[in-house]
C-alpha cells in the first residue's frame, strides 16, 4: 500500500496576467465579508414594525445590502434590530435575546422609542435600549422613513468595514 506511487496529475498553468492572488489586510477582508452578510433578528414590539416591513419588502429591499434574511433565532443572527417601544417588563427578555447572540454582533435601535424612549417618559417604558445593552447605530423617527433605515444600514456597514475583526477577542 505504501509503496504504491501517487498518480501524476498534469497541472496546466494559466496564462500570465490572470487573477491568481491578491494581498489585503485580514480586517478589511473579514469586514468586507461581514458587512454584506448581516443576518438581522427583528425584535419587534410596536408600530415601527410596519415600517420594518416596508423597508424589507420589494420597494426598498434591504436584500441589496445583504440584510434580507431575518433569523427568528438570536443564535443565528448577528444584527439585533429593536423595532419599537421596549417596556420595563420587556427589558429582561431583550437582555436575554442579546446575550444569546454569538459574537460578532451589532445592535440597531430602530425608531425613536428604542433610541431614547421617545415621548414615553413614565413608569412603563425603558428610556432607550442603550440603558441595558450597547447600541451601534441609532435611527430616529416616529417611525423612520425607509430611506433613513437604509442610511442606517449603510452607516452600520461602514462601521463594520472600518472595524477590527479579531479572530480571538476579549469575550471569546
Amino acid at each position: 500500500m505504501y509503496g504504491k506511487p501517487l498518480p501524476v496529475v498534469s497541472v496546466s498553468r494559466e496564462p500570465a496576467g490572470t487573477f491568481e492572488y491578491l494581498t489585503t489586510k485580514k480586517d478589511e477582508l473579514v469586514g468586507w465579508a461581514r458587512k454584506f452578510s448581516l443576518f438581522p433578528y427583528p425584535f419587534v414590539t410596536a408600530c415601527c414594525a410596519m415600517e420594518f416591513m416596508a423597508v424589507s419588502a420589494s420597494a426598498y429591499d434591504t436584500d441589496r445590502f445583504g440584510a434580507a434574511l431575518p433569523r427568528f433565532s438570536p443564535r443565528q443572527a448577528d444584527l439585533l434590530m429593536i423595532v419599537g417601544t421596549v417596556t420595563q417588563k420587556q427589558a429582561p427578555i431583550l437582555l436575554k435575546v442579546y446575550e444569546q447572540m454569538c459574537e460578532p454582533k451589532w445592535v440597531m435601535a430602530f425608531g425613536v422609542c428604542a433610541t431614547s424612549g421617545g415621548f414615553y417618559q413614565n413608569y412603563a417604558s425603558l428610556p432607550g435600549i442603550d440603558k441595558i445593552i450597547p447600541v451601534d447605530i441609532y435611527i430616529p423617527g416616529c417611525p423612520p422613513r425607509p430611506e433613513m433605515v437604509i442610511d442606517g444600514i449603510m452607516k452600520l456597514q461602514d462601521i463594520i468595514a472600518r472595524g477590527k475583526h479579531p479572530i480571538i477577542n476579549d469575550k471569546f
Partner: protein
Amino acid sequence: MVPIPIFDALHTALSAKGANTTVSHGVLVCDVEPAQVFTTATHLKSAFAFDVFLDVTAVDWPDHALRFEVVYHFYSTTHKVRVRMKTRVADATPHVPTLRPLYGSAGYMERECHDMYGIIFDGNDDLRPILLYEGFHGHPLRKDYPKQLEQPLVRYRF
C-alpha cells in the same frame, strides 16, 4: 336624540333602591354606595339583561374625602344600550366587592384596576399584577405617583 325606552324603567328601578341616576352623553349613570355595587349589578344583569361587563376602572380625586371613584360599564346585547355605575371609596379603605361571580371577565379587569389604582376587590382572591410586574411598588395611575419614576427590572448600564 331618540329617547331610549329602557332608561325610564331603569331610573324607576334604581331610584327605588336609593341610587341617584342621571343621563350623561346618552349613557345612563347611576351612583351607588360601595355596599350596593353587587346587588345593583345583579339587578342590572338579571332584570335588564346587561349581559356584557365592559370595564371597571377608577378615577383619582386627590382633594376629595372619598378619593377614588370606581366606574363600571355594562352593555346589554338585548337593548343595545350601555349603563355606567359609579361608587366612591376612601383612600384608607379602597374596598369594593368583586363582580367575578356575575361576570367571568371581571377577574382580569379587576386585576388591572388593582394594579393601576390599588382598589381592593373583596372576594377576588387573584389580584396578582397583570400589566405590572412582581416587585413594582405603588400604583402608577394614582395622582401622587411621580410621573417619571421608573422601577427597572434590569440594572441600567449608566
